[in-house]
């Protein structure tokens, strides 16, 4: 399958549309970890993230003919994954609301698991990651999507604009606002 590295993503999806299933496998190999990172940072749960990535890739399989050559494959697949992740979060929010409404008042208080940093650079870095991840989860969805795509996935503003289907200026403004909110949430930690 090494020879498939010669092909661009767009060439692979076209080969797949023509019936070459190996092209699909190659696309999955190229995108599974990228999508996993994006979706995990978005939903904050490994199992759910993996399910969502699988569902997105199944959609690529079943809806392959919906892809049109005018767009980049990455734009298309990130859009699918992002939409599925948002749907999952909305479902989760509804479930949470229902569960909370079923609880008594005394049951509603809960403690977040304590994250105690130990010594060592690796642990500190892991601690920082956990703090950032928690701060990202606090962002509104429209800020969260764009800041992950920009600062973690390192996509261009133009591609993000196409993925979220929002004007370029709005994307830039949302990313800036998201970063300001993140620094506000993280300023008590010495890393920031």
């Amino acid at each position, binding site marked *: 399958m090494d020879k498939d590295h010669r092909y661009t993503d767009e060439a692979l999806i076209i080969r797949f549309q023509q019936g070459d299933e190996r092209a699909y496998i190659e696309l999955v190999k190229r995108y599974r970890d990228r999508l996993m990172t994006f979706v995990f940072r978005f939903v904050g749960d490994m199992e759910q993230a993996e399910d969502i990535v699988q569902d997105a890739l199944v959609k690529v399989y079943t809806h392959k003919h919906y892809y049109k050559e005018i767009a980049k494959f990455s734009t298309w697949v990130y859009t699918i994954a992002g939409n599925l992740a948002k749907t999952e979060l909305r479902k989760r929010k509804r479930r949470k609301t229902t569960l909370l409404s079923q609880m008594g008042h005394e049951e509603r208080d809960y403690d977040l698991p304590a994250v105690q940093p130990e010594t060592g650079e690796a642990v500190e870095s892991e601690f920082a990651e956990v703090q*950032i991840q928690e701060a990202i989860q606090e962002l509104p969805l429209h800020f969260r999507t764009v800041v992950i795509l920009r600062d973690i996935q390192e996509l261009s503003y133009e591609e993000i604009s196409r993925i979220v289907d929002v004007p370029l200026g709005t994307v830039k403004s949302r990313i800036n606002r998201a*970063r300001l909110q993140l620094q506000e949430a993280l300023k008590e930690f010495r890393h920031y």
Partner: protein
Amino acid sequence: MDRYQFEDSISEYIENTLTLSQRKDFEDYIENNPESVVLVERVRSVINNMQKMPDVKTSPDFMGQLMRKVDVEKNRPAQRVKPGNTVFGFTPLYAGLMSVAVVGLIMIGLQMIPDSSQGPTPIPNHFTQESAPVQSPATQPHELRMESLAGAEEDSANVEVQMDKRRSNIKNKIRLVKNQ
């Protein structure tokens, strides 16, 4: 540059996408507002730390699970409708419902067709009965028109009698009030 413009420009300043004049304005602002330098550095730190976050890997069984899901999706249409159990490509239920609907439409259509053996197209009774009250006076028979005119005259005569009675009542009341 004010505070809002400064905050709006932080990312562009860090990513070096401001024009020369905008950059100069920005730097003038942070020179005059030393606390704003801290904010710029914090945002820069957030960006750097996010970029350093490790990639998240899928589990070793990811591919196997994915292919199982793909197989389920591939087989789904075949499971829903077996090719042998279709009528012109429709499921037996839909085919049955559509047949009933078609037969019903044909029956209604047949009832609407006039019987040609009884000469010119007869008007069904219920149409004539319902439309009689809304016939315009011009199309009504002469006797009917005369009857309705006589009725109208009678009505207007009754109204005049009632008005006379009311007038006399009012006059009587006025007289009574004057006498008191």
